[in-house]
């Protein structure tokens, strides 16, 4: 993974000094709340329900063992010994003290980490596929370009105070796993007819309260121009995006208001002037960064491993886990392994310091000392030998990191919600936990198969509920907490936004509602059809009918 040189290091060190000074000025009253807000936000510090929340950047989800050990230590020393991995591949601490943040940043800088631009109205952490570099269907490893873009966007002076936050995702696979269409800018790298690295650029996607999927603004962009083309897009947005209403300030609103053709015309007009400017990426720079992402020193292995096959045959628990948690790898005899942060009954995405230390050790022992955070809020060891998977499983299981539920219903994506977040309409974590307990029977869970369930505590959509096969949104009705259910959303190449099935439910009803949706699926599915495919084939009507049947009946009897 990328290693800092003096230039990278000086930037994070100077950031610590700058932020220490800003915090000091705030605490002595030389900066007002309003003035300090964008400064702390651009350093990932929110003021939340119980305490500030600090979001630490994990660029495109990559971590080293050393970094994860450090995160664990920081969580122990400055927080309640756990951290939360987010859908944007970052890590959040829920209970740090504002006064301690400069020290936390100094600790992070020691392991080449920071919290720069993890929040606020600026270009945020650039995200990508958690299987980058190891996925068999990968055309281009997007990480080098992601790093080049990270550097470009870090303290970009022109874009320091945009109308609203700005998120970029990149992907280099045929099957999109980075949800590029749900980002302000999405970039899909591919090899063009001349076998040159090229980029398909999407613009104006985003979830939040006005969910919109991005539109292609350019089918073919030569990689050298990635930065200048983004500058053209962000400049048009910076100048013309709305600043009078935070809910209408994202680029998606501008793109929609202007229409993609007019927006594109303005961007291209701007780009005429920016193209070939010094920010054009050089071969040498891409090569310099790319050497940090060279393939690991893999052993030459057979496709099969006898000890693995034997363990699968003799140990059903291991087999169940392996089925969900091992992912294809481009090298024979290797697998990418997902460690689940979705143990039933725990807050999705939370990891204790002890677990973090354990994962860091596992990564060191089995996966070249590196790991990734996925936007599904799990941790991934990307390069594990098939012959090591059994030993890895035993150790992960001892740490509660081996729930065999990856990609299944209980692998819930969930925002912090009302337990932590001051913007929440409703709690989300307890809903996730209740659903996990409802579906605690493993055979049943595996029978239901692949299913994505996403929960957000309000329409800001931090839990990506719009693109969940089943989406749950917390809403506020006369001061009490209710949940609206959507069906048919999905990420990936056929990204779609879910449809609301009808009136909302109380918290107690939710596990039962999900149960009913599943029962419709189980009785209607054709063969191997996944939940989402059944929803697509049948539409929401039969699901709706079944879920509301009791309610309607109850109403008819005058009970409700």
């Amino acid at each position, binding site marked *: 993974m990328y290693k800092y*040189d003096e230039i990278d290091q000086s930037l994070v060190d*100077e950031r610590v000094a700058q932020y220490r000074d800003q915090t000091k000025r705030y605490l002595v009253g030389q900066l007002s709340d309003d*003035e300090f807000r964008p*400064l702390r936000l651009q350093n990932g510090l929110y003021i939340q329900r119980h305490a500030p929340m600090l979001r630490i950047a994990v660029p495109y989800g990559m971590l080293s063992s050393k970094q994860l050990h450090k995160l664990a230590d920081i969580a122990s020393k400055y927080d309640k010994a756990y951290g939360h991995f987010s859908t944007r591949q970052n890590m959040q601490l829920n209970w740090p003290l504002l006064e301690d943040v400069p020290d936390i940043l100094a600790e992070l800088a020691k392991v080449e980490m920071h919290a720069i631009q993890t929040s606020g109205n600026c270009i945020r952490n650039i995200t990508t596929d958690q299987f980058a570099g190891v996925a068999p269907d990968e055309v281009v490893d997007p990480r080098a370009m992601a790093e080049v873009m990270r550097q*470009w966007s870090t*303290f970009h002076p022109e874009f*320091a*105070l945009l109308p609203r936050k700005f998120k970029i995702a990149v992907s280099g696979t045929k099957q999109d796993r980075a949800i590029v269409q749900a980002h302000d800018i999405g970039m899909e790298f591919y090899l063009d007819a001349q076998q040159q690295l090229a980029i398909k650029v999407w613009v104006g996607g985003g979830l939040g309260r006005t969910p919109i999927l991005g539109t292609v603004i350019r089918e073919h962009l030569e990689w050298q121009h990635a930065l200048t083309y983004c500058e053209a897009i962000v400049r048009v947005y*910076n100048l013309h995006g709305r600043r*009078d209403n935070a809910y209408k300030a994202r680029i998606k609103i501008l793109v929609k208001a202007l229409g993609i053709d007019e927006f594109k015309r303005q961007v291209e007009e701007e780009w005429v002037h920016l193209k070939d400017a010094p920010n054009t990426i050089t071969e040498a720079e891409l090569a310099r960064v790319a050497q940090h992402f060279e393939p690991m020193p893999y052993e030459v292995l057979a496709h099969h491993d006898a000890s693995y096959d034997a363990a699968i045959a003799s140990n059903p628990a291991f087999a169940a886990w392996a089925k969900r948690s091992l992912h294809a790898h481009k090298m024979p005899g290797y697998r990418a392994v997902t460690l689940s942060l979705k143990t039933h009954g725990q807050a999705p995405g939370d990891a204790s310091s002890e677990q973090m230390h354990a994962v860091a050790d596992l990564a060191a022992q089995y996966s070249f000392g590196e790991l990734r955070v996925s936007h599904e809020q799990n941790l991934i060891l990307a390069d594990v030998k098939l012959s090591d998977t059994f030993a890895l499983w035993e150790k992960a299981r001892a740490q509660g990191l081996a729930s065999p539920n990856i990609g299944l219903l209980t692998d819930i994506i969930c925002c912090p919600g009302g337990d932590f977040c001051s913007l929440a309409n409703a709690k989300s974590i307890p809903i996730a936990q209740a659903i996990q307990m409802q579906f605690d029977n493993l055979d049943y869970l595996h029978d239901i198969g692949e299913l994505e369930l996403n929960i957000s505590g309000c329409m800001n959509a931090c839990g990506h509920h719009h693109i969940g096969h089943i989406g749950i949104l917390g809403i506020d009705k006369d001061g009490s907490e209710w949940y609206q259910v959507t069906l048919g959303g999905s990420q990936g190449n056929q990204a779609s936004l879910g449809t609301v099935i009808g009136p909302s439910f109380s918290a107690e009803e939710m596990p039962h509602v999900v149960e009913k949706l599943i029962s419709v699926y189980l009785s209607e599915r054709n063969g191997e059809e996944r939940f989402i495919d059944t929803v697509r084939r049948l539409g929401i009507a039969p699901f709706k009918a079944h879920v509301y049947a009791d309610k309607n009946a109850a109403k008819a009897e005058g009970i409700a």
Partner: protein
Amino acid sequence: MSHLITLQADVAKITEDAWQFVALPPSQQEVRKQAGKVVLFKLTGEQTVTPEQIAGTLIPANGKVMVPLTVFIARKTELQARLDQHEVGVWLDTHESLTDLNQAQEDLNALPIIAVHVERFADGRIFSLGTLLRSRYGFKNELRAVGDVLRDQLFFLKRSGFNSFAMRTDRSATEAIASLNDFSQPYQGAVDEARPAFRRYNR
């Protein structure tokens, strides 16, 4: 004491202000909110200037004056002699258009100073305007940030081509100078240094 920081050959100093800032008289009209229409995006929520305001703007008879863009455009003939004496500068708001400025004044370098007025420090349009003035319009003279100008934006302003900063007067300008150099080796090329780190250093 002056709150004006100027950069001369990269050295920041507190200097006396030679320019008189000419403000528009307050408008009698209600502020237009929520323009909604696409063409009005730039103006959304901002005040538009009325002909009465332009006519009623008092321009001091002597000395160097920095006038609002709308006044400059409408009353240029009246200012022409002083313009020739290099005694007229222009300031614009962040929602105003550089095309308008350039149409009224083809040779921007005839203006000894252009200022961008930022009403709220969090309005980042100022950075794009500075960048465009320097890189697109080739403006070489004094480029000043005025209004809600605070220390923590100085580094970005400098990188966007500004070389003078009228700091908000309730804060220390002397202390603010340090923030011009918050970062020593920025990654990306910008106005002050067009080459990104990867072209400046053999990394």
